[in-house]
């Protein structure tokens, strides 16, 4: 894995008095670096290199990280206050084999969500085949009827996505949440990498880490690829709500690294079905808008009238095919948490494959049986609003008071469409520098994917968020969360086989275009059964995440109030 030389490999094992001295993993969680007190093989290089530094030295390096972030202005906003984004000194490692699994799983999911969005904003075949009830989609606040009839070049609506993953008690990756509206956090992936390479050069140099710096180029290329047809040299702009937005740092960084304009709504004018940008030399046409403004605020003509952040007439220009809005309008219906429960079925339906990355078991409150069970076990479960962001409204059963639970019960009965329930998840841990000792802290992972219409590319890295308070599982930066640099190791050439997803189970409902191929196979002589009235039962096998463990933990993954 690493280019460790002879002399280095005979250094110390790992005893107390050293950086990782005395570290031990929790008993019922999966620690990614240590199994009990012994270091896992993947992390040997990091342990060995970091143990060569004194505790004071490691602390000094950590201080440097914080200091350099302050000077560079790598910050996020909480309630109008800028704070440096905390980054931990211990990197998180993902070796090549594991990563190729994640990569394939994320890409598969994005492809399915693309197909799903294209379908529901078009003929809605998926409803007719009974894979997902129509009302689930139409009752979502993010299903926008005005988004129908907008043509997306190459059929791309999910230009950028962030799929939130967690590792359960067995170390298996599971999808916690999809973000296909305006996922943020990639700027921290880029700046974390740069900061870490200066803070821990010796550790860095002993690993073959896949770079993340190509992200802006990939993003720009795919945005340009998705420009309206007939534009030879498309102009791309990044649309930001402004300097007071929580993710403004990211908007500015991406615009700077891509070399595009960073515009606010007032800089753009929609005229005669075209979008133009005001410059000191007059109005100039814009072809692609990478927008970081929510649907609601995008166009006061169609959405919120009082929005000062949007551009009146933008949607009409998109409808006329003169400008591409990325990510697409109305994508929110695909990352609705109730839709989430159907995604495994959607993958089978549209791609004819079994999901590579499983969901976290989820109860739909709409389903009478599920609801009865959840209401019965409310004190053991996590209840989340389906369109919640920033961790708002989440109730963690084991931690809630009786009055909170009673209140929750009432709200669940009053609005079953608005909620889902999940077992308390044991997030994996990674050693994190707290004061002057290493302690296990819970992490999640948000890989970013870019779709250019031909291929879904997954950035080898992703944002690892870490919950800094002890025992805390809320990794959100607005709730005291930090981050880690995520190192995806390069595999030996050709040594990592491409994971191939299993074909969808025999009894799964698949899209008409896939049915022909299926029935042509020798074994499958029968044609598809008529659409069934209900979808697959959502409860997956009870193995895996240890659904009912009582230790109170949950995860909450919206990022900085925006996604």
């Amino acid at each position, binding site marked *: 894995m690493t280019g460790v030389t002879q002399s280095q490999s005979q250094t110390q094992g790992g005893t107390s008095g050293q950086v990782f001295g005395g570290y031990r993993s929790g008993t019922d969680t999966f620690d990614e670096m240590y199994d009990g007190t012994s270091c896992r093989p993947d992390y040997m290089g990091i342990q060995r290199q970091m143990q060569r530094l004194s505790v004071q030295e490691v602390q000094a390096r950590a201080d440097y990280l914080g200091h350099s972030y302050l*000077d560079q202005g790598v910050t996020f906003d909480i309630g109008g206050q800028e704070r440096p984004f905390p980054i931990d000194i211990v990197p998180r490692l993902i070796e090549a084999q594991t990563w190729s699994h994640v990569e394939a799983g994320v890409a598969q999911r994005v492809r399915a969500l693309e197909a799903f969005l294209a379908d529901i904003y078009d003929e809605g075949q998926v409803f007719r085949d009974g894979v997902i009830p129509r009302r689930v989609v139409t009752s979502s606040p993010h299903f926008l009827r005005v988004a129908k009839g907008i043509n997306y070049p190459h059929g791309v609506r999910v230009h950028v996505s962030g799929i939130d993953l967690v590792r359960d008690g067995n170390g298996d990756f599971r999808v916690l949440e999809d973000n296909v509206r305006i996922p943020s956090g990639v700027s921290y992936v880029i700046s974390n990498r740069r900061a870490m390479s200066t803070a821990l050069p010796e550790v860095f140099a002993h690993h073959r880490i896949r770079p993340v710096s190509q992200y802006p180029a990939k993003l720009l290329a795919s945005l340009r690829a998705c420009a309206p047809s007939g534009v030879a040299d498309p102009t791309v702009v990044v649309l930001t709500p402004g300097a007071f937005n929580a993710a403004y740092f990211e908007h500015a960084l991406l615009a700077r690294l891509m070399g595009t304009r960073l515009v606010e709504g007032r800089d753009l004018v929609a005229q005669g079905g075209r979008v133009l940008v005001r410059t000191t030399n007059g109005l100039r046409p814009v072809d692609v808008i990478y927008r970081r403004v929510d649907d609601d605020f995008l166009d006061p003509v169609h959405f919120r009238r009082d929005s000062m952040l949007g551009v009146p007439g933008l949607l009409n220009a998109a409808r006329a095919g003169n400008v591409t809005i990325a990510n697409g309008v109305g994508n929110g219906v695909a990352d609705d948490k109730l839709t989430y429960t159907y995604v495994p079925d959607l993958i089978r339906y549209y791609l004819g494959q079994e999901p590579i990355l499983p969901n976290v078991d989820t109860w739909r409150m709409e389903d009478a049986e599920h609801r009865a069970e959840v209401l019965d076990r409310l004190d053991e479960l996590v209840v989340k609003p389906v369109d919640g962001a920033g961790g708002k409204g989440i109730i963690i059963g084991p931690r809630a008071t009786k009055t909170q639970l009673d209140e929750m019960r009432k709200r669940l009965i009053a609005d079953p469409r608005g909620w889902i329930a999940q077992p308390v998840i044991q997030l994996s841990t990674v050693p994190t520098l707290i004061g002057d000792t290493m302690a296990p802290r819970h992490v999640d992972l948000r890989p970013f994917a870019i779709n250019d219409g031909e291929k879904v590319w997954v950035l080898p890295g992703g944002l690892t968020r870490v919950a800094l308070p002890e025992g805390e599982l809320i990794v959100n930066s607005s709730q005291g969360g930090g981050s880690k640099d995520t190192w995806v190791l390069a595999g030996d050439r050709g040594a990592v086989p491409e994971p191939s997803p299993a074909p969808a189970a025999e009894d799964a409902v698949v899209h008409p275009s896939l049915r022909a191929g299926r029935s042509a196979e020798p074994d499958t002589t029968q044609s598809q059964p008529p659409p069934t009235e209900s979808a697959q039962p959502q409860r997956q096998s009870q193995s895996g995440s240890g659904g009912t463990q009582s230790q109170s933990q949950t995860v909450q993954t919206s990022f900085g109030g925006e996604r």
Partner: protein
Amino acid sequence: MLSRIAEALFWIGRYVERAECTARILDTYLQLLIEDPVIDEEATCRSVMAAMGIDYGEGTPDANALLQTLLLDRTAAPSIAYAIETARENARRSREVVSTEVWEAINSTYNAVLAGQLQQRRPADAFRFVRERASMISALADSTQSHDDGWQFIVLGRSIERIDMTARLIMMGNYVSGPNGAWALTLRSCGAAHAFTRVYRVTESPRAAAEFLLLDRLFPRSISHLLEQAGHCLEELDPRSRRVGFGGDAARVIGQAHARLSYLPLTDLVTDLPREMEELQRVCADATQAIAKRYFEGVVAPEWLTEAL
């Protein structure tokens, strides 16, 4: 270049320069308060504040009040802390355009202000810090950014602010203290004392000092030089045709002021210096307004026109 970005860059230029000039003024006059045994502290403080556009009102301003309002008070528009904060806010808004190094220089200066460095240092040291930081930011802008329109806006802002501040300083020199050393003081607070001595030797001639600060073509802080520089920026931004015309209202305002200064007999200039200086401040305000109208408000387009254009 986006109108909004152009505006931010212009104001970065102005606020960074304002911080520097204010530091120079405070440095000089605080030293004067200490060194001159017969000085009327209250009157001096009042006139410094008046020159910066502050009406102190009731009470007796002293050196501390001066430091508070012009250096530390983050809510008072004429203070250095405010100027740094505003420059930083503008840089944040134009962050994809200003070079990384300029941004980091401005941002770390701002962080130092937030951390209370201006209070903790001795005043003279704090002024040096501000001066050095301002020079660093300007130099980084000059050496790490393309000399395109954006950079022209920074330089334009810097020049106009420097004209404005120099005019205020010269005026203040007239109010403050007797004839003795007033000009020496002004020269020092403009950072021109050394350059002046190199050219005119040690003299206490007010006429020579006025000539140097107003008309010297080679000294980069003289008003004549600055007007020329501002005019040059405007021409770059809006190239005029070779035969006739000029680049917009701002260029006219600046050009007229430059011509007046250059061709008026020195004696006429010096006889009513305060009025001339007030006039220059008005020129700066007018030019800023014209620039804002021409470049920052955008070529105002009707928002709801359907098929026109």
